């Protein structure tokens, strides 16, 4: 059903990297450092305890045969008990110190935006089963950009830190924002805004997905964070700040599609900035084609997939909240023509 589209979206055989052990952002790096220490301590305990266990099994198994008399009964030893209470207690003490340091480094509250801070502030709103991004400020400048599913952020290249501060909210149920290479999870909880941050000097695509079960299509609430060179990011931001393009040719199929779009119920859920479409339940479509994927990262954004999505969204993403509207094929073709202009 959907597998062919997925292949198209991700390119043949390109295995993506989502490993928590390949961090590209300070919170993820601090966590890896902590995890290696904890793993080393665990390995140490593991070797000692399993070692004693296997030694005892090998050494004392069936000793003396079944007829042998009972071995000496040892009821306990206070000194030994104190020793093996103290040793784990010491390890716990060390772990608490290290955890505290990492916790304070990773989980710091977001600062207030100010002019010249080179920082990007985005409000992330979780919806069943897609992500809404409201770009608040960048470098102290107020922005009015709203987009969905694919988050563009600037890279901290050229020795300049460009941290990304997220405010996390939910429009419906609990979700969780998780891009493993950028940081740990932070939940999006209705009525309880959360914060998190990351920054990276490595441009590229970072994948993740919702990590808190949120209903039918939890599995396909995919996350794409695109880290751009600062100049590219500025260009992207400038394009996203503009209202939607209006089809140039008044008699072309795009204009006809636009007219169909605005007379159908599309506008109840979707927004196209600069137009009368002001719906808030679905993703903002102002610059739909500036995004590479549809259905929160499930399939590549192109004519075929747009068409299939409009014919029957349930065949692409079963259970998603967009219904099939039963439009005429001609109407669908025109709407797709129009949507393809939204760049």
């Amino acid at each position, binding site marked *: 059903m*959907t*597998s062919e589209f*997925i292949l198209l979206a*991700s390119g043949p*055989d*390109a*295995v993506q*990297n*989502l*490993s*928590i052990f390949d961090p590209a952002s300070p919170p993820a790096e*601090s966590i890896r450092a*902590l995890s290696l220490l*904890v793993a080393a301590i*665990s390995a140490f305990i*593991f070797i000692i*305890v399993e070692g*004693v*266990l296997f030694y*005892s099994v090998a050494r*004392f*198994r069936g*000793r003396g045969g079944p007829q*042998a008399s009972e*071995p000496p*009964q*040892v009821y*306990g*030893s206070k000194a030994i*008990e104190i020793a093996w*209470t103290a040793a*784990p*207690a010491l390890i*716990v003490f060390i*772990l*608490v110190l290290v955890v*505290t340091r990492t*916790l304070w480094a990773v989980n710091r509250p977001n600062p207030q935006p100010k002019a010249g801070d080179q920082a990007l502030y985005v409000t992330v709103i979780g919806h*069943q089963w897609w992500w809404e991004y409201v770009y608040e400020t960048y470098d102290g400048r107020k922005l009015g950009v709203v987009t969905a599913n694919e988050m563009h952020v600037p890279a901290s290249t050229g020795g300049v830190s460009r941290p990304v501060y997220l405010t996390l909210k939910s429009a419906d149920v*609990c979700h969780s924002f*998780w891009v*493993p290479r950028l940081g*740990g999870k*932070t939940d999006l*909880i*209705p*009525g*309880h805004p*959360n*914060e998190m941050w990351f920054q990276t000097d490595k441009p590229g695509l970072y*994948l993740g*997905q*919702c990590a*808190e*079960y949120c*209903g*039918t*299509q939890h*599995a396909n609430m995919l996350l794409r964070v695109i880290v751009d060179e600062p100049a590219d990011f500025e260009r992207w931001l400038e394009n996203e700040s503009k209202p939607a393009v209006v089809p140039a040719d008044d008699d072309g199929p795009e204009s006809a599609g636009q007219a169909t779009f605005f007379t159908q119920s599309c506008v109840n859920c979707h927004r196209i900035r600069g137009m009368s479409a002001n719906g808030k339940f679905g993703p903002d479509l102002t610059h739909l084609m500036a995004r590479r994927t549809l259905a929160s990262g499930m399939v590549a954004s192109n004519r075929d997939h747009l068409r299939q999505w409009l014919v029957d969204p349930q065949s692409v993403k*079963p259970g998603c909240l967009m219904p099939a509207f039963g439009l005429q094929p001609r109407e669908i073709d025109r709407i797709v023509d129009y949507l393809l202009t939204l760049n």
Partner: protein
Amino acid sequence: MASIELDTPEVGQAAARSSAAPSLLYDLVTTVDHKKIGLMYIAMALVFLVIGGCEALLMRWQLLFPRYDFIGPDAFNQLFTMHGTTMVFFMGMPTLIGIGNFMVPLAIGARDMAFPRLNAFGFWVSLLGGLLVYFSYATGGAPAIGWFAYAPLTERTFARSAATDFWALGLTVSGTGTLAGAVNFIATILGMRAPGMTLRKVPFFAWTMLWTSVLILFAIPPLTAALVMLLFDRNLGAHFFDTQNGGSALLWQHMFWFFGHPEVYILILPAFGMVSEVIPVFSRKVLFGYEFMAAATAAIAFISLGVWAHHMFAVGMSRTADLFFVVSSLLVSIPTGIKFFNWLATMYGGRISFASPMLFAFGFLSMFLIGGLTGIMLAAAPFDFQLTDSYFVIGHFHWVLIGGTLFGTFAGLYYWYPKVTGRMLSERLGRWHFWLLYVGFFLTFGPMHVSGFLGMPRRIYTYDVDRGWDFWNQLTTVGALLQAPSYAIFIYNVVVSLWKGRPAGNDPWDAWTLEWTTTSPPPSYNFEQIPVVHSRRPLWDIKHPDDPDWKYE
């Protein structure tokens, strides 16, 4: 060695065989005998084990290939909800309460539980709860909310069918049964011990059942309250968890985990108790450091009431709150470590025989340690930000619940089966069971840790080709397929040995606690004469009159 045939061995068996089928059914629904109720708990648990296991296999088959179309999202989400709910409430707890029901009165030298009719009530209500939860399928599908049912996904806005109501109602009802069981255990263990058996001399399994019951008493009521609030929300227009009308999503999480974390210890403490009975007998040594083991059990029970929010590190609590739960969670590792070292010290210097109970106790020791260590990783809050809600967590808690609870429980079942039935289980099938389960378990849950490291979240019905998770998921599925026959072998062994098993006699393992003084199976009154005990190992005293235990305790 002194012979201790205190009763004629065949009397009980003959009595059990003579009942005809219709009167057997009548007997089962009206009985207040702790042994029959215990067996009914275990039978119930086995049925739900098969159901929950099939649910797991269906999920594993769906995850065999990326973007596989075996079952859709709705069915998958229902399956993991029912699998978790079933295994925790209708398999795990009934097994342990069932074994406790059968063995605790025998082990402490009592003729029944303190409140026999409450005992029967507890069982039937637990069963009714399980049936109610499964009745949700009659509404067109089971609830798809996950076993911890996070609000507001459970509100009527998001979960429209009555399935969620059946789920909440079923858990409320079965929780009542569990509470009845806990009250009964506490009264029995505190009030009905044989003369001479002070609290410092109770068999270790009874001691752990006592603390598990205390935890049930603290943990189940908050869950029941939360479930009733949820039912009010869904059916009477309340707004406790309805975030769109000022309710709180976090309130549910706190209430659920205030139950949910002690629940883990409710499920593990009796397993601790069972291996603490098995390891000494099969190492031919007294349990090392009984007092410290006993204190560690109580310490675990206390600390476990203060660790619940380590399931919620990612919800955005303050760093101070995070730190509190880091410290409390790590503290649990100290008494757990004490237990572990004492088990090892019991084996050390012994004469270890690997009959099937000890084989499973060995499985418990070698695997539970790993589950404990991955638990330390999860308790380190920042590490948990990455690990929580990933497949690593699934690997971790199955390692604890199968590597710990299940292996420990199998040790107990193989140990006490001869007492319960008068027949020995087949050792050969026991070995097949153990090794298939051991290898299959390793292969199922080991790779889950890796898929978690590679960014795979839990509760997803499918995943993209390009994620690189397919190999690890395929290993997991193969492991699950390897585990499945091990359970079939066990059930076959349990059933067939009822007729074909070698007669066990009163005391096949040359053991030391009171249950082994009576016949196998025990008569309905358990003991002809209530025994008088002087030490933790009354049978050791009888078998070694020249060197009795009470001289050293």
